């Protein structure tokens, strides 16, 4: 199991932590450590650098956003470390802070997503390998709050679906599977979106995410 993805888990609820450890172990991940607060997470990362850390945003002692703070700090020190933030609520502000510099190896998901185990595992793998995984809720909020609604209204319904999935960080192949269309059709939609919104075309998925998010946020 040398090529197993190595994961650190930071989650203060014991029941969820144990569940995650069990689930990830079952799916062939290697757990470096499972801790219950951000201080222990920092120490754990320094001891044994994993590929990705699953971090609860709200943890002791202040129960506000220490998970996010720890994540930002860890990214500064270990730019290749993937971070999957995990929360009961979606705060667009956190997403903005997290994605301010780079979307590579960043994930932000509602905790509910673990119920769909395969999707969750897929997102974790994506983040671990330098991709992006944004919760559909984050994308919905960003689209809803965007001041570019006039440009967005120029998109067809299908194109808007593709845009949202793109913003979540999915690849063309994943978008094709999710919408049950061919990959070629997805490519065509993507090209149309980039033309209509006047965005620079980029090849890698996470750059694409960033371009879309910047567009929505501007």
């Amino acid at each position: 199991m040398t090529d197993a993805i190595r994961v650190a888990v930071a989650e203060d609820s014991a029941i969820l932590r144990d569940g995650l450890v069990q689930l990830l172990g079952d799916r062939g991940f290697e757990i470096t450590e499972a801790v219950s607060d951000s201080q222990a997470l920092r120490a754990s990362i320094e001891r044994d650098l994993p590929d990705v850390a699953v971090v609860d945003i709200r943890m002791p002692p202040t129960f506000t956003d220490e998970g996010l703070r720890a994540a930002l700090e860890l990214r500064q020190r270990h730019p290749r470390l993937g971070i999957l933030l995990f929360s009961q609520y979606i705060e667009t502000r956190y997403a903005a802070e997290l994605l301010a510099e780079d979307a590579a190896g960043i994930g932000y998901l509602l905790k509910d997503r673990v119920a769909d185990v395969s999707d969750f595992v897929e997102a974790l793998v994506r983040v671990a390998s330098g991709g992006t995984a944004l919760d559909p809720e984050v994308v919905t909020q960003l689209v809803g709050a965007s001041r570019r609604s006039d440009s967005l209204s120029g998109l067809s319904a299908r194109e808007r679906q593709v845009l949202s999935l793109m913003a979540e960080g999915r690849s063309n192949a994943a978008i094709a599977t999710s919408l049950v269309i061919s990959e070629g059709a997805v490519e065509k939609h993507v090209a149309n979106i980039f033309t209509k919104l006047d965005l620079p075309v980029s090849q890698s998925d996470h750059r694409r995410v960033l371009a879309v998010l910047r567009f929505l946020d501007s």
Partner: protein
Amino acid sequence: MTKTEVDGSGGDVQVLGEKERLIVVSEVRLEQGRRLARIVVHEPLGRRAWRELLYFVLGGLLTGVAVAFIALTMFTGIALLITFIGVIIVAASVRGSRGFGRYHRALARNLMVEDIDEPEPFASKPGFFGWLQSALRDRVGWRAMWYSVLKVPLVIVGTWFALSVWIDAFFCLTYPVWGSGNTEPKGFGVVWNLFPPGYLSIGTSGFLHGLSIFITGLLLVLLAPWTMRLIVRLDRWLMRLLLSPDPVTARMRTLEDDRARTVDASVATLRRIERDLHDGTQAQLVALAMRLGQAKEKLAEPGELDLDQVRRLVDEAHRGAKETIVELRDLARGIHPPVLDTGLEGALSTLAARSTLPTELTVELRDRPTPTIETIAYFCVAELLANVAQHAQASRATIGCVQHGQWLRLVVRDDGRGGARPSAFGSSSSGLAGLTDRVHTVDGHLSITSPIGGPTVVTVDLPMHG
């Protein structure tokens, strides 16, 4: 004689006879008399007497200035009231009176120990007309004006009745220096005038004449601090009445504080509920969904089905669901116990029955308190019983819930080790401090007596209709 006898019996005689008892009594009287004499003689030399004299003189001068200002401004203002300028002058008069009030308070604070709280600072509404309106409605200013006006008769009476005694005393004492022949000190105070001029003077000249007037002076010195104190005491009373913070404003401020505390308390409660939901129920449900999701995927997997694994997952999910139900029920009860709807007695008996140690309950209620009070009473008892179970090492507890007129008194007593202090109970949000805050929001009281070794008694008084 008496002295020797007392000394002779001192220490040896255990039981005092009738004679000795009388002797002891007279000894006590003697001691009291000595103390009185000491006070009378020492008083004129004490700092207090001189400070009061200085206060009276300076206060009197200040009153003169204040009243001159008030009279001038008010008369002009009222005379010109028909024009707008009159209104401005009256407003200025009120504002000025407020300032004089501050000097009066400062004088009392510095010269006597009379520390009268500063009233609310003048709060002006924006704009000139706002200022005008605020000044005319400034209760503190109007009360300070009344103080200055009412102090005038006090200064007059005080001058004649108290200051005069000091002055007369001075002239009498110095008479031997400046007096001669047929002259007599010119007394003008009330004490002097109550008697024929020159009382206690013997003859009209000579040594005895001078001596007798000097002795009169000594007696007046002994008297002077006391008449002055009487006047100053009246002044202090007047000050506390008119120069203290306005009771109406003060009451409003208390109400505002109470309201802020209530709001804080309810925000804290909401936060606690959110935390409980977030860390408890929500986490439980996520874990539950996660297990079911895993089981679902296992069932959908092609090939050989690992029934044991699926069974384990479903089993864990089932247990998780049941735990979540219990947790939610406890949480809901923490927000509002449904049993309270049937009345406090039923709710308290449920609490007593649920308690981990034998608990005896006495309820004597003629009326039903308001729901707010019932809820506070319920949570007080719940928290206190939880504390007893956790900290007290008690073998039993009693709960008393008795109505005294318009008050509800809760008494929770345990036979534990005692030594409880408010800070030692739990955290500030959920512990005794939180309870105290909650009790205060309805003007109730909470007190603890908990000597080392016990027993601990916590008494909570709540208004029946808070």
